[in-house]
């Protein structure tokens, strides 16, 4: 029986590990939430002071909102700066999420949900677009790992087209092998009518936005229904075809999920560009036409 020459895994070490684990979990929530709370209190305080001294409180809330937006954009900078120690990216990401929620509160202090004037309306729309895309992106990021795991071993996005092509080729070969024989011809016919488009074409936009197993279930059930027209050999081929349908559907699913993550991340960034332009215009206009600070 083997023994370790080093002593380890004592109960004391375990408790230290548990404490460290607890710290790690708390760290990702505590720092961002404390930061957000402090910022919120500062904004509220500044706004009240501004109101009490009969100043234009919209400037306080506006610049606070702008400052929060700048902090939110710093996440992009942090992602690109790898050579300087700026703290864990996970904490930045969490802070980004919390500040994103705070920005909605700051926006509510600054303006109403719907505003008048085309510039302000566009600005409001772009703000809500960013907030919405961020929220969806957050949800997608939270949910994706579980969905990807459910679709079998992880496959790299760049490998999916080649794998899809191989599966389509195998399905075609199987259909060709079953064609021309009475015992198995039903499978070839079924392939031609129902399965060929499934293997050869991309999935619909609806599927790519919200992938589901409906098509897979329908196609597999359809394949099982032709068992009565097949011999034993044909049934074996049918089972192989069912597996290929499932494999193709898994690939489509993985592709859709991985693309969805990228889409929402990109959408979040694209809208940001428009928002920056509109914000600059809004600041200039506000200063030009405001009666007082």
């Amino acid at each position, binding site marked *: 029986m083997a023994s370790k020459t080093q002593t380890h895994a004592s109960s004391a070490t375990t408790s230290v590990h548990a404490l460290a684990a607890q710290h790690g979990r708390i760290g990702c929530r505590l720092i961002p939430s404390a930061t957000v709370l402090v910022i919120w209190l500062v904004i509220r305080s500044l706004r009240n002071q501004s109101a009490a001294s009969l100043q234009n409180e919209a400037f306080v809330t506006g610049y606070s909102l702008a400052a929060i937006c700048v902090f939110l954009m710093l996440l992009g900078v942090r992602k690109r700066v790898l050579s300087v*120690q700026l703290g864990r990216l996970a904490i930045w990401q969490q802070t980004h999420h919390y500040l994103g929620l705070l920005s909605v509160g700051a926006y509510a202090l600054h303006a109403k949900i719907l505003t008048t004037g085309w510039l302000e309306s566009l600005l409001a729309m772009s703000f809500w677009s960013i907030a919405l895309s961020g929220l969806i992106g957050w949800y997608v*990021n939270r949910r994706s790992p579980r969905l990807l795991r459910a679709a079998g071993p992880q*496959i790299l996005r760049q490998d999916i087209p080649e794998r899809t092509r191989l599966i389509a080729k195998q399905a075609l070969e199987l259909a060709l092998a079953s064609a021309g024989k009475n015992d198995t011809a039903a499978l070839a016919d079924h392939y031609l009518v129902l399965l060929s488009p499934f293997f050869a074409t991309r999935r619909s936009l609806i599927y790519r936005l919200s992938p589901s197993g409906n098509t897979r279930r329908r196609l597999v059930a359809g394949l099982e229904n032709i068992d009565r027209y097949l011999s034993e050999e044909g049934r074996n081929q049918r089972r192989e075809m069912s597996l290929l349908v499932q494999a193709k559907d898994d690939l489509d699913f993985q592709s859709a999920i991985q693309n969805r993550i990228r889409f929402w991340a990109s959408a979040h960034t694209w809208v940001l560009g428009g928002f920056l332009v509109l914000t600059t215009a809004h600041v200039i206009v506000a200063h030009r036409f405001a009666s007082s600070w």
Partner: protein
Amino acid sequence: MKTHSSDQIAMDRPVRWDHPLDPEMLTRAVCWILDQPPFSDMNSDVFPSHSSLEDILRHDCRILRYEPGDIIVREGDYGGSAYLVLRGSVRAFLESLWQPRGKPTDSSHSSTWLDWLKQQFKQVPLPSQATSNENRREGSRSGNQTASADKNRPTPLQQIETVDGKSRIFLQDINAVINGFQSEPLGVGEIFGEMAAITRSQHRYTVVANSPTVVLEIRWQGLRMMRRDKTFRDYLDARFRETSLQTHLRETPLLRFLDDAAMEKVIAQTNIESIGEREWFSEYRDTQKLDVQTQIAREPLIAAEGHVVKDLILIRAGFARLSFEQGRGHQTVAYLGRGHVFGLAELAHRFRYSANNPLPYQESLRALGFVDILRIPSEIVLTHILPKIRNAELPKPIANPRYDSGGLVVSELLPSSREGYVYPAEKSLSNLETSLVEFLVDERLINGKQTMLIDLDRCTGCDECVKACASTHEGTPRFVRNGPQFGPLLFAHACMHCTDPVCMIGCPTGAIARDQDSGVISIDLQTCIGCKTCAESCPYSNIVMIQVRDEKGRAAVDRKTQLPILQASKCDLCQELTTGPACQNACPHQALIRIDTSETHALEHWLTKRAG
């Protein structure tokens, strides 16, 4: 170099020895060395004409000069060269010279919120730092016994001095150190450092110049070529066995209470054995295609369960599988590496309870690839070692043995009970589930010191890690975010900076080498000739060949053949960054970590943390 077309550039294909170890090595010096033993006794006919002994000496060797007290080899540093004494003499210290300086710092020991807050913004530990700390800890393990043996002994002080633009590290008051620590003198014609060079591991002892000394450094590639000469090979093997046996026994904590006389007896009776092939990767590739039980059956058996315990087995290098028969197959319980002991519990049981009715081995031990073991006969263990060990340090008694002197204890009449045998938790070396241990062993991930592990329950496939790697390495990522999977754990195809880096074995130029201090294995692009040996040797496909490009992005082709010029590419743990591996830093979901899978406790800790 001349331009070939707009997107290609023609150049001479790099060849071996374009970059000799010492470009200023003189022909006169080479001739002088050839006249010295052991080279004067070598048969030059065994060397091919394109790699004559003279060529090897010219390109793979260099002459180094040392003053008394200069440190030539330092324990804990990774070795890539052997050293031959040409003039003067040196001292090899068989015990650790440096004792631990207090408790090693551990991030998990943060006690205050301020400490913890600092920790959050502290840089991710650099692999070099992590490994260096580990080196120190490894050093300290052997140092502990020294400390307990003689607490009054002074710690040798290292000094750094610059002479003629070159820095030298030396020990202050070398005579006091020689008197205070056990050392072995080595004179002209004797070799040292070969053990670490051959096994691609850390030096286990420190070697210091005793007088003005001239030493010939022979890098691993040259040493490998010189082994063609039988006399030299036999000398190296004998020296390797003698040194490694002594060094390992002296730094084994189990033997730390032995006095010198007992230690000498143990050394005299212990045998060292090398099992399996050092170049195990080719056989592993072949056996990987077979089913698991056939793979296990093919692994060389070191000790079989149910057999009489003849020896206590100490693992010196490599890995071994600890398993027992379960149904028609073998269940892997753990993997043992350097420093682990097999057979101690059975011998301790015999020592304490049943001298007349000894228990046989309870599990089997099989070599995984290549393993170096030391066998200490049972009688020696029972008479000289176990009486010196405190009861509390001995393994727990074997309450329910699977085998006793009569054979298998579980009734043969109830095969189902045998098949359903559950390995007792108190016997387990780790808390990892059996299937994970089996996965790690079957995939040989047990070799990894910096294994890239991705938690698929967190990974969204955003590829931020890949982008970060690419942006750090001129647009080419050095890993693939894919690889063997165990449930939600993905072991990505990224260099693991292995305990036994077999990729280094065949490199003809020494381009792929382990950093002496950090243990990181990296490729020197200046000396890589694109021979693909390392890529083909890596059992994990973690090294790829890429086309050489110039600073304008043009692909390099051979001037003569017009074929692309390739170079090996692999993860270098972002050595140039002060912030640690970019992939780990860039993961927004804390899904990617670099972890030591050669020992189970790092993985256990991480899994506990993950489970929350």
